[in-house]
């Protein structure tokens, strides 16, 4: 499923990006950047509460399909700029991390 299709299905907000990437690496949830770097699969849906510029650098370099900011945590201007530069799609949801992952998994029929 494409990022934008999932976003639409779940009624999440598309903060930036075209959402054109296919999610084939499953779902990964974590906020500690070097753990994400080492363990998030490429092309995965990465869910975090950390919406800073370093999040976008990690998503770019670890090559995740997108970033989901849970709990409607803030996404600052530098982060948006970083996402733009890295060509990263960022989604926002008011759901907490677990609920967000569960609804994404259900929609993508991973469970």
């Amino acid at each position, binding site marked *: 499923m494409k990022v934008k299709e999932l976003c639409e299905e779940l009624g999440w907000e598309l903060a930036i990006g075209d959402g054109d990437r296919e999610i084939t690496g499953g779902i990964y949830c974590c906020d*500690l950047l*070097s753990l994400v770097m*080492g363990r998030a699969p*490429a092309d995965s849906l990465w869910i975090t509460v950390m919406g800073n510029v*370093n*999040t976008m*650098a990690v998503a770019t*370099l670890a090559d995740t399909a997108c970033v989901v900011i849970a709990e409607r945590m803030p996404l600052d201007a530098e982060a948006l700029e970083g996402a733009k530069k890295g060509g990263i799609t960022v989604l926002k949801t008011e759901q907490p991390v677990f609920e967000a992952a569960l609804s994404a998994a259900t929609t993508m029929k991973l469970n």
Partner: protein
Amino acid sequence: MSENSLHYHYVVPGDDFTRAGIASSAVKKTLKQLGIYPETVRKLSISLFEGEINMVIHADGGEIDVWIDDEKIVAELVDKGPGIENIELAMQEGWSTASEQVRGLGFGAGMGLPNMKKYSDELIIDSTVGVGTKVTLIVNIVK
């Protein structure tokens, strides 16, 4: 390195988290443009980013040189920071001296050096307390 290798040089400013990752992102872009196998690009990107961030958060910045030839990518990260007292300890998963401020940004899991070990084909750390640290990363190019 063969004579016709490509060479790139980056200066990494210290304590500027908004710019952290710029060198790694630039190298990633170059590797992609060269048509290098995506998993190789990813390995180098992850390793180099961890090294770049370490220079920013632990050593007040430094310099990065990257050479690319047909067979491998070599990255050399040099800083004049405090150095690493016990490299064996620093290499352990979860060991970190990161400050509270840096942890608040999502760093400090103590996974950077283990990631570099995992994703590079060769990792050489040369560090002297009070003088600085030189990290050499090599990732072989898969054809």
